[in-house]
C-alpha cells in the first residue's frame, strides 16, 4: 500500500515533531542539528540507490489513495528530473544542516524552531518534486512557501525580517493561487489530475480555449516561486533569513521549484509559440535585470540574491528556448534545440553547487567579521585563505571561467542562444538576433559582480578599524560544507559526462519524452570545442568585463540616474499601503463596535435569504390536516410562554428579564415532556439551568438597565427586523411541518438495538450512528470554552498584572 518513497517524503515531517523534545532535553549539551543531520543523509543515500535504475531510463510510480472519492491519490513518481531535484534537496540539505550546526549558536538561538521549519520545508520540497497528482503537488508547493515565510522571519524581532517574510509570502502565495487556478483549468481540459496522464493526452491540447489562460496562470506560479521579473523583488528581502537558509531555500532548492514546474510542464505546453516567448523572454529579462542590479549592491548577500535572480533567469530562458524542440517533433532540428534543455538542467545543478558554496562563504565572512558590507571589507585574503579560495572557485564558476563547471554550462547557453537567433519559427527571425546580445551583455555584468565579490572582499586594504574585531579563518566544521560544494564545482568540470550520463540525460528524457524514445540525442560535454563563436563570446565577456570592473567608479553613477520612486519595490510598498487603507476604510463602514448593529446584519440577512428563498421558490405552504388537536393543557402552556416572552420586552430590570427568559426555556421543556421526548426535555431543563446561572454571572458585570431614549426611527427599524425574523421563522416552521419532501430517515434508527445494542435511539444516534457529528460538536464546544477563557483571562501586555499574579 505505502511505499518507501512515500515514507521518505513523510520522514522529515515526522522527525519535525520530535525535534522540540530533543531540543528541550539536550540543549545546551549537544547541538540539535546533529540529530537532524541524519535525516537528509539517509534520504540522500536512499535516493542514490535509484541512480543506476534511473539512468537506464526506468521510472517508478507508487500510489496511495488519499481521497479516492474525488480521484485524488497520492501518487509518487520518480524519473530523472525528480531524482535530480531530490538529490539536490537532500544533498545540499545535509551540507546546510552541517553548516548550520556551526553557524547557529546552541546557546543563543531558538534551534527548535529553526530545525522544525527546515524539516517541514525539506519534506514539502521532496513531496513537491515526487508527486504526480497536481493537487498534492499544490499542497506541497504552498507548504514550501509557508515554511520559507517562517524561516525568513526566524529572527522575527527584526523589523526587516518580518517585512521580507511578509513580502515573500504575499508574492509566492499569490503565485501559488494563480497556479492552482491553472491546474484546475488544466484538469478540466485533460480530464485528469495526473501529470503523466496529462502529458500522454497533450497532443490536441493547444486548440482548447483554456490552453492559453492555463499556461499563463501556471507560469505566474512558476515565475513568482523562481523570482522571475517582475516578481523577483521578494528574493533580496528574503536574505534577512539566516545564511544557511539563504543557501538552501533561496538559491539551491525552493527557487528551483518554479524551474522544476516549467520543466515538468514543457511536454504539455512546449511547442506553442506563447510558451516559447513567455518563458524565454521573461527568463532573459530576468537574467539582464538581475545581473545589472547585482553590480550596484553593497551588501554581499544582496549581491548574491540578485545574482541568483539572474542565474534563475538564465535557466528559465534555456528551458524556454529548448521548448522549440517540441515544435519540430523528432529530427536534427529538434535535437539542436533540445541541447538548451540539457544545458538548463546542467546549469541547474552547477548553480546549486557554486551558489551554495558562495552563500556559505559569505555567511562565514559575516560570522567572522560581523559585516557583509563591501565598503567595510577588504584585504581578507591573508586572513581567511580557505574562504578566499572557495570564493574564487564559486565566483569564477559563476562568471563562466574554466576550469569550473560554470564555464561548461555557460558555453552551452551561448550555443543555445546562437542557435535560436537563426531559428525561423515563432517569428524568431525578427527578434532572434537580440537574444544573443542580451545574453552576452548579461554575462558581462555577471562577470563584473563575480569580480566584485572576490576582489572587493579579499583584496585591497584591510580595514580593521571598520570591523572592530580581530578576523581569522572560520572553524573547520563551518568550512566543510562549502569545501564539498567547491570541490564538486571542479570535479564536474573535469568529469561532466559522468554527471550527464547518470543524471542529466534521464532528466532531459523526462522533459522531452518524445525525443527520448527515438534515442537520437547524443550528448557529450567537452570543454574544448575549437575556435568557435561561443569561445570568442567568452573572450569578449572577460575582456569587456575586466575593463568595466577596473573603471567601475567612472560609470557607477549611471545607477543613480534611475529614480528611486519607480522601482518595483516602491510599487509593491505603495500597493500594500493602499490596500491596507482601503480595507480599513471598508471595514470601518460596517464594523461599528456595537453588538446591536451586528445583530441587525445577522437578522436582516436571515429575513432576506431564508424568507427570500422560501418566497422565491414558493416554499410557503401549509397543511394543517395532519396536525393533532391542541388540548387545554397545551393551550395553557402556550399562554404562559407568550406572557413570559412579553415580560422580557417590558421588564424594567435585568433580573426580571433573566428570570423571564429562564421561565420561557423551562416551559419549552414541558412541551418536550408532553410530546414524549424525555431526552430532549432533560437536556432542555439542564441547559436552561446552566445558562440561567451563566446569565446571572454575566449580570454582575453589566450596568444598570436604563430607560433608553432613542429616536422613533431607530426603534421602528428594530421593530420591523425583529417582527420580520419572528414571522419568517414561524412560517418556515409551519411550512416544514406541513410538507414532507423526503422520506423520513427515522426508520433506519428504529433498529438501534440490533445495530448498536442500545434501546435508546437518541443516544445511539449521538454516540454511534452520527458519532463524528458529536465528536466535532464537542471539539467546537471545547474550542469555544478555550476562546472564552482566552478572552477573559489572557491579557497580553499592558493588562492587569495583579490578576495574573493572583
Amino acid at each position, binding site marked *: 500500500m505505502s511505499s518507501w518513497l512515500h515514507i521518505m517524503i513523510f520522514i522529515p515531517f515526522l522527525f519535525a515533531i520530535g525535534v522540540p523534545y530533543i531540543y528541550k532535553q539536550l540543549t545546551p549539551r549537544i547541538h540539535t542539528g546533529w540529530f537532524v543531520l541524519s535525516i537528509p543523509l539517509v534520504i540522500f543515500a536512499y535516493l542514490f540507490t535509484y541512480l543506476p535504475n534511473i539512468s537506464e531510463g526506468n521510472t517508478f510510480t507508487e500510489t496511495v489513495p488519499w481521497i479516492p472519492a474525488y480521484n485524488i491519490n497520492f501518487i509518487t513518481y520518480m524519473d530523472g528530473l525528480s531524482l535530480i531535484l531530490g538529490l539536490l534537496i537532500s544533498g545540499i540539505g545535509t551540507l546546510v544542516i552541517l553548516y548550520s550546526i556551526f553557524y547557529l549558536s546552541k546557546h543563543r538561538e531558538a534551534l527548535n524552531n529553526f530545525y522544525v521549519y527546515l524539516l517541514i520545508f525539506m519534506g514539502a520540497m521532496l513531496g513537491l518534486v515526487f508527486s504526480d497528482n497536481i493537487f498534492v503537488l499544490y499542497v506541497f508547493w504552498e507548504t514550501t512557501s509557508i515554511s520559507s515565510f517562517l524561516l525568513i522571519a526566524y529572527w522575527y524581532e527584526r523589523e526587516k525580517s518580518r517585512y521580507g517574510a511578509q513580502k515573500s509570502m504575499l508574492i509566492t502565495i499569490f503565485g501559488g493561487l494563480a497556479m492552482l487556478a491553472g491546474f484546475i483549468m488544466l484538469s478540466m481540459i485533460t480530464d485528469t489530475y495526473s501529470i503523466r496522464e496529462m502529458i500522454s493526452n497533450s497532443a490536441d491540447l493547444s486548440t482548447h480555449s483554456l490552453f492559453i489562460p492555463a499556461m499563463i496562470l501556471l507560469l505566474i506560479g512558476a515565475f513568482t516561486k523562481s523570482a522571475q521579473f517582475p516578481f523577483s523583488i521578494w528574493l533580496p528581502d528574503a536574505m534577512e533569513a539566516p545564511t544557511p537558509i539563504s543557501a538552501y531555500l533561496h538559491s539551491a532548492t525552493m527557487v528551483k521549484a518554479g524551474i522544476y514546474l516549467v520543466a515538468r510542464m514543457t511536454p504539455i505546453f512546449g511547442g506553442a509559440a506563447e510558451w516559447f516567448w513567455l518563458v524565454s523572454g521573461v527568463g532573459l529579462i530576468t537574467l539582464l535585470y538581475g545581473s545589472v542590479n547585482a553590480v550596484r549592491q553593497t551588501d554581499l548577500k544582496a549581491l548574491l540574491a540578485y545574482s541568483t535572480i539572474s542565474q534563475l533567469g538564465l535557466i528559465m530562458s534555456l528551458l524556454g528556448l529548448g521548448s522549440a524542440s517540441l515544435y519540430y517533433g523528432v529530427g536534427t532540428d529538434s535535437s539542436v534545440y533540445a541541447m538548451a534543455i540539457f544545458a538548463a538542467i546542467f546549469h541547474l545543478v552547477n548553480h546549486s553547487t557554486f551558489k551554495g558554496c558562495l552563500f556559505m562563504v559569505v555567511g562565514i565572512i559575516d560570522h567572522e567579521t560581523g559585516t557583509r558590507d563591501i565598503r567595510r571589507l577588504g584585504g581578507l585574503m591573508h586572513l581567511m585563505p580557505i574562504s578566499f579560495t572557495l570564493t574564487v572557485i564559486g565566483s569564477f564558476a559563476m562568471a563562466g571561467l574554466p576550469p569550473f563547471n560554470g564555464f561548461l554550462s555557460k558555453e552551452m547557453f551561448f550555443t543555445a542562444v546562437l542557435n535560436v537567433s537563426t531559428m525561423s519559427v515563432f517569428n524568431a527571425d525578427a527578434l532572434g538576433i537580440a537574444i544573443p546580445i542580451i545574453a552576452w551583455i548579461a554575462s558581462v555584468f555577471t562577470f563584473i559582480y563575480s569580480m566584485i565579490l572576490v576582489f572587493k572582499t579579499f583584496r585591497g586594504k584591510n580595514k580593521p578599524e571598520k570591523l572592530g574585531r580581530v578576523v581569522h579563518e572560520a572553524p573547520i566544521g563551518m568550512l566543510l560544507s562549502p569545501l564539498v560544494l567547491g570541490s564538486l564545482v571542479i570535479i564536474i568540470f573535469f568529469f561532466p559526462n559522468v554527471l550527464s550520463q547518470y543524471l542529466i540525460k534521464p532528466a532531459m528524457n523526462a522533459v522531452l519524452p518524445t525525443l527520448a524514445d527515438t534515442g537520437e540525442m547524443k550528448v557529450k560535454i567537452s570543454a574544448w570545442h575549437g575556435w568557435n563563436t561561443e569561445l570568442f563570446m567568452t573572450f569578449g565577456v572577460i575582456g569587456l568585463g575586466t575593463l568595466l570592473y577596473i573603471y567601475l567608479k567612472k560609470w557607477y553613477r549611471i545607477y543613480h540616474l534611475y529614480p528611486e520612486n519607480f522601482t518595483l519595490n516602491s510599487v509593491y510598498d505603495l500597493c500594500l499601503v493602499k490596500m491596507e487603507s482601503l480595507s480599513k476604510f471598508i471595514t470601518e463602514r460596517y464594523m461599528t463596535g456595537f453588538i446591536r448593529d451586528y445583530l441587525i446584519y445577522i437578522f436582516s440577512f436571515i429575513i432576506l435569504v431564508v424568507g427570500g428563498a422560501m418566497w422565491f421558490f414558493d416554499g410557503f405552504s401549509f397543511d394543517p390536516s395532519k396536525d393533532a388537536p391542541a388540548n387545554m393543557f397545551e393551550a395553557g402552556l402556550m399562554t404562559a410562554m407568550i406572557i413570559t416572552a412579553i415580560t422580557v420586552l417590558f421588564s424594567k430590570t435585568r433580573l426580571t428579564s433573566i428570570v423571564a427568559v429562564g421561565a420561557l426555556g423551562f416551559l419549552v421543556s414541558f412541551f418536550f415532556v408532553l410530546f414524549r421526548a*424525555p*431526552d430532549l426535555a*432533560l*437536556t432542555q431543563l*439542564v*441547559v436552561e*439551568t*446552566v445558562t440561567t*446561572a*451563566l446569565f446571572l*454571572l*454575566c449580570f*454582575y*458585570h453589566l450596568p444598570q438597565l436604563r430607560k433608553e431614549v432613542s429616536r422613533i426611527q431607530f426603534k421602528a427599524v428594530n421593530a420591523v427586523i425583529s417582527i420580520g425574523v419572528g414571522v419568517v421563522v414561524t412560517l418556515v416552521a409551519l411550512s416544514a411541518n406541513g410538507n414532507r419532501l423526503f422520506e423520513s430517515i427515522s426508520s433506519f434508527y428504529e433498529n438501534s438495538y440490533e445495530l*448498536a*445494542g*442500545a*434501546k*435508546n435511539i*437518541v*443516544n*445511539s444516534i*449521538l*454516540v*454511534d450512528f452520527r*458519532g*463524528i457529528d*458529536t*465528536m466535532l460538536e*464537542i*471539539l467546537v*464546544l*471545547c474550542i*469555544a*470554552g*478555550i476562546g*472564552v*477563557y482566552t478572552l*477573559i*483571562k489572557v491579557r497580553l501586555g499592558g493588562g492587569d498584572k495583579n490578576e495574573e499574579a493572583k
Partner: protein
Amino acid sequence: MKKPNDVIIRSVTKVAVVIIFTFAINLFISGHHFPGGGFIGGLVFASGLILMFLTFDMETVRHNIPVDFKVVAAVGVLIAVLTGVGAMVLDAPFLSQSFGYFELPIFGKTELATAVIFDVGVALAVIGTSMTIIMSIGDDR
C-alpha cells in the same frame, strides 16, 4: 463584600450536591437504554458543581476540587477522538463502535459497548467546557 446570610442554601447544597452527582452518574449510565447519556449526564454534573460554586466561595471549592477544567475538556475530546482511532487500528472505519455481551462476576450477563467510552469523552468535554466558561466569567471581577 459583606458576609452573606446563606445558612439555608449551604445546608441544602451539602445534601443536594450528592444527590445531583448520583443522578448525573445514573443518567450517564442509563443512557444506553433509557433517557440520558453523556451530554445530559455531563451537564447535570456540571450544574451540581455550579451549585457548589454559587453556594460556597469559589476559592474554597477550587481548593477542595483542584481540577483544571480546561484539561478535563481537552481530555474528553481526546478520549472521543481516540476511540475513533482505536477503530481504525482494528481495521474498521473511523469511529466504528461495537458492543457485546459478557459474563461478569458480580453483574451477571452484561452488555459492554465501546460507545460508552466515547460517551465518557463527551461527558468530560461538556463538564470541562461549561465549567471553564462559567468559572472564567465568574472569576472576572
